[in-house]
């Protein structure tokens, strides 16, 4: 532990920087990474970075502790770049870094948990001295290998890049570049994304140096110490407000064929500290749903932060008061070289586990399970009319869980913020014909507050060649559960129009002239359905979000007007 916790934080008037100076500096730090993140997003090629916001950008002090983290992208990843950089400093000590160096790696155990995520770290020099690091991670569109769940070890999942210099002294390492390009299917796009990352680093580096120049500081040491102290204090104060105790939850998911995933979460609140432990969870499996401890930590800490202390700027100090552990060899802390490609299928469940564990102690804050935890992705691949290969990913969202104050949002990404792209844009780039993208009636879990609705998407193959459909999801046997008496949402489902129902982690074929309908899960409800305001039930009926039959079943016969409930504006009898 490089930092001690602060006994007696200096009172405001003893701070070396007053309330104005510190605010100005802190907000400029935040602006540095926000600007860098914007650059990455705008220059990126891959739809994954763009539409699923699968990236992060941070600025760190010379010890590899984050001082500013981008709010856009996946905030959960920011802290991992800090741990990665501290690890890199063991391999490449501080004195060995030069201006213009760029180190990359995709090692899932030290970076963000699977091979397509490439992490990048570069030094920031100011007046010849190493004053910090810029860091980022982004999901590139391909990393070689066989991207399916069937593989049984990491090496089959693609190119493994240990920490290596992509640039040294500002010069590209052509051997690394050549090796990388030779091992991926979309070299131009992958390289374009890496260049976008490098462009973001350049903005981060330049702005950070400008900031030091403007404030007349030699490095980020003092500022870093101050913001870490304040963020740490903020997290601790938020934890201290939660009654001490040991809170537990357990949940189950489909996992892979024959190997359902079990998560056992023990969350201990002790004064100003929270420890999350996953002892009792499933052992690691020979399929790609293992979540490295890094990923497990990120997807446990971030939901906690959002529940307890949302909206404050985050940095290294924000996470000191929270520890995460899982037994080695478990699905939440697998041993190298376990396959990890689809680690989100396990990791996204942890936000549900954290909320469920705190349901009794924070009833007015927690959310019921979301249908999109984990997210369901569909990849279509094949050859277009001209015989050229194509691959397209369908981004679409399930329903969010409800909470004490409101219904869950329908078709909204959570816990990620991966939006949906345009159907028109997809049809313009891939030989697919969408027939339907609509709210899925009756999919929101009933409750005092209803879970958000999922959606039905029907896709036809209008061409003459078969299209390969890769489904990657969960929640076909295990719907999003309600909370505080709320009912579960509808499970996810996929069906071809000939009646075949492919499992949600499978490869299948969409024959010419046929169609597949993918039904995204609904969110869980909050509170007993009997507590729902009849006017809310009536509004759902009128909008067609629930059917009269479901309303009668879940909310009682009195909930449905004698007519069909779809009359407009006329008073009900």
């Amino acid at each position, binding site marked *: 532990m490089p930092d001690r916790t602060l006994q007696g934080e200096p009172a405001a008037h003893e701070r070396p920087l007053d309330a*104005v100076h510190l605010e100005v500096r802190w907000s400029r730090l935040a602006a540095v990474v926000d*600007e860098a993140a914007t650059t990455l997003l705008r220059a990126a090629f891959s739809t994954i970075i763009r539409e699923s916001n699968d990236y992060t950008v941070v600025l760190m002090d010379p010890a590899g502790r984050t001082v500013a983290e981008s709010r856009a992208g996946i905030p959960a990843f920011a802290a991992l770049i800090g741990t990665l950089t501290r690890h890199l400093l063991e391999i490449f000590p501080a004195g060995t870094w030069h201006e213009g160096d760029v180190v990359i790696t995709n090692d899932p155990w030290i970076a963000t948990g699977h091979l397509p995520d490439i992490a990048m770290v570069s030094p920031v020099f100011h*007046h010849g001295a190493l004053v910090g690091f810029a860091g980022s991670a982004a999901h590139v569109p391909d990393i070689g290998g066989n991207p399916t769940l069937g593989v049984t070890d990491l090496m089959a999942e693609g190119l493994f890049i240990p920490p290596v210099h992509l640039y040294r002294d500002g010069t590209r390492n052509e051997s690394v570049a050549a090796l990388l390009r030779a091992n991926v299917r979309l070299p131009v796009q992958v390289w*374009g994304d890496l260049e976008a990352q490098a462009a973001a680093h350049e903005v981060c580096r330049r702005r950070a140096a400008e900031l030091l120049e403007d404030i007349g500081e030699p490095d980020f040491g003092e500022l870093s110490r101050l913001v870490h102290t304040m963020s740490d204090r903020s997290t601790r104060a938020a934890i201290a407000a939660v009654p001490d105790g040991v809170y537990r939850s357990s949940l189950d998911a489909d996992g892979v064929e024959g190997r359902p995933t079990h998560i056992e979460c023990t969350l201990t609140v002790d004064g100003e500290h929270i420890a999350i432990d996953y002892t009792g969870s499933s052992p690691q499996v020979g399929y790609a749903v293992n979540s490295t401890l890094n990923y497990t930590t990120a997807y446990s800490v971030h939901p906690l932060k959002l529940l307890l202390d949302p*909206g404050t700027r985050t940095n290294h100090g924000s996470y000191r008061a929270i520890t995460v552990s899982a037994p080695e060899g478990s699905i939440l802390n697998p041993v190298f070289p376990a396959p990890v490609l689809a680690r989100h299928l396990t990791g996204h469940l942890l936000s549900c586990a954290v909320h469920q564990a705190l349901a009794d102690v924070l009833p007015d804050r927690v959310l019921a399970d979301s249908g999109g935890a984990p997210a369901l992705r569909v990849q279509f691949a094949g050859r277009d009319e001209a015989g050229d290969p194509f691959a397209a990913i369908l981004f679409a969202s399930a329903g969010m869980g409800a909470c004490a104050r409101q219904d869950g949002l329908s078709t909204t990404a959570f816990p990620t913020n991966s939006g949906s792209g*345009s159907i028109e844009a997809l049809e313009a780039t891939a030989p697919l014909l969408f027939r*339907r993208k*609509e709210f899925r009636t009756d999919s929101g879990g009933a409750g005092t507050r209803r879970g958000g609705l999922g959606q039905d998407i029907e896709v036809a193959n209008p061409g003459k060649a078969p299209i390969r459909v890769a489904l990657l999801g969960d929640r076909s046997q295990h719907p999003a559960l309600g909370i505080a008496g709320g009912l579960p949402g509808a499970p996810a489902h996929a069906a071809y129009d000939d009646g075949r129902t492919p499992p949600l982690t499978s490869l299948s074929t969409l024959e010419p002239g046929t169609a597949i309908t993918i039904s995204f899960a609904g969110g869980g409800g909050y509170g007993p359905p009997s507590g729902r305001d009849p006017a809310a039930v009536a509004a759902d009926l009128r909008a067609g979000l629930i059917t009269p039959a479901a309303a009668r079943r879940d909310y009682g016969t009195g909930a449905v007007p004698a007519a069909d409930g779809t009359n407009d504006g006329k008073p009900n009898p």
Partner: protein
Amino acid sequence: MTEHIAARLSCTIGVDVGGTFTDLVLHDAGRATTRTAKLLTTPGDPSHAVIEGVRRLLATAGVGIEQVTTLVHGTTLITNTLLERTGAKVGLIATEGFRDVLEMGREIRYDTDDLYARPAPVIVPRHLRIGVPGRITADAAELVPLDEAAVLEAARELVDGHGVEALAIAFLHSYANPSHERIARELVRSRHPGLPISLSADVAPEIGEYERTSTACVNAYVQPVVGAYLDRLEADLARLGFTGTIALMLSSGGLTTLARAKALPVGLLESGPAAGAIAAAHLAGLAGEDRVIAFDMGGTTAKMSLVEHGLPHVTHEFEAGRLDRFKPGSGLPLKTAVIDMIEIGAGGGSIASADGFGLLKVGPRSAGSVPGPVAYGRGGTRPTVTDADLLTGHLDPDHFLGGELTPTLPRVRGAFEELAGRLGVDAARTADGTLEIVTENMAAATRMHLSEKGRDPRAYALMAFGGAGPVHAYALAKSLKVRRVIVPMGAGVLSAFGFLVADPAVEDVRGYATPVAAADWTKVGELYEEMEEHAAALLSRMEPGTARIVRTRSADMRYLGQGHEITVPLPDGPLSGSRAGELRRRFTERYTAVFGRELPEGTPEVTNWRLTATLPTARPSLVHASPGQRAGAAPLRGRRSVRIPGFGVCEAAVYDRDALAPGATVAGPAVFEEHETSCAVGPDCTAVVDAHHNLIIDIDYPHPRSEGATG
């Protein structure tokens, strides 16, 4: 031609209906005078204040209504209709299976820090959205013919069953082939004459079903309100004896006809802010500045936009009716041309407070005009930026709001003392810090805005206007390392002048995505022919028989696979395969400027083809007949202490701006006061009054590359 000269020698009136005030400006070309008037807006029927204001202006100017040839109008009516959700009951006819696209949106959360954030409520509720069979594909082909009976049945249900007052029609791929939308419109029109109908292909012919549908629905939502208002205004003006032309200010800064405004009201959303940017662009031209950051700071917000070579930057995406004004994504996305402007919660009324960490924060909350800053003495208790301006000497308590109000300084000091206690500093530091932080907030937003375009603020001049703009211009310029600040005469009421200098314009676009190398140039030529014919027809309605149309063509471009486009000007002359290399070169140039690198292996692609057609008009010279202008008055009013960032408290000479003659040169530290605003500059400045009465302030920076920069 004689007719034109005659027209130029008569009067033009500009009217800006804002949320609180209706500003009017009259320019009398014959006498080369300009007059302004300000009235409270009459929200019940905004045309009341307009008519009353016109009457007053004519009376004070001694001009008859028959001398007024043009009335140029801008209004916040549409913005308010969306914010207050007081528009029409709209029905939507969509492609079968896709009626929920409008409500699903982008499926993201605009505030990922807030687990409970909800999106803006959908503008057409689900029971008023009906899908009908019929399908156009991405290559513009008809796959399934439009089910005409279903269209009529949907319209019947929406109109007769639900009583919708306006209809939007949005089908998939209509940007590529609008035939189904057009057939549907004719069908519905035949059964329901008089029902306003908005087609997505007319309103926003670009790829992206959600944004296009949203734009069509918003257009339908505001159409009846805007139509009724404009009809009323037209009738009221006619009763007054007005026989000239009414032109409407577009969000992009151009002018359009009454008829087109009624058909596409969504294009008028940002007319007020656009006028400010147009005025700034005009003045930048007069001052001979090629690159200007227009900085408009009022009571609640600050707005920044870029003007290059006399033209404000225009963007084609906008968001209206945000739940949280300063959170992108919390509103309704629109595909429409608007002046590219950022707006942040930094104004004179922005409130200073302590956050959970005991750090000083300023805004985005504002005390507004009621209760307003503490100094107003109208019940405000929380210190604001304006209050800090008073305590630091940037505003003069004896000439506060033009001397119309005497601020209660002890109360202002008390408010800062109270806040200072929570911050662990003293009141003076709190007031000073309030200015430092509001400046930093504005500087950060400006840097971000320029950075997105690959621009460096140091290459720009800062033009400050709005009531609070000149007051904070020097500090902002220093933070951005800008070398020149321009404070135009009458900076406090500058926006209204934009109405006098705007040109009639048409913005149009066609979505046709293609790699440059594979472009069908015949098709591109046809698209432009269609757009140019349409533009010429519209512009000729504003000036019959005109041959002076200026066309600017540009393309939205990216590397194939990217999701973000940059706008690239197209070469002049006929487009063909032989010009592809030139287009590719221009794209690479722009791309490198923005992202600092090019991608030699990438494939440049065009997504949208754009046309801007304008009708340049003779610009009136705006000699501002300021009510306070005192020829021959002594310019030096006295001296006072002002806290200047970087220099501490300075004894500054105070000048009466109105009494400074062109050519006057003043060395800082100095304060320039005028009726609506004030501007203090540091000892590192030299200010000159130019021929147009603009104050040109040059800041002297220490040599940047000298040794010992760390010291």
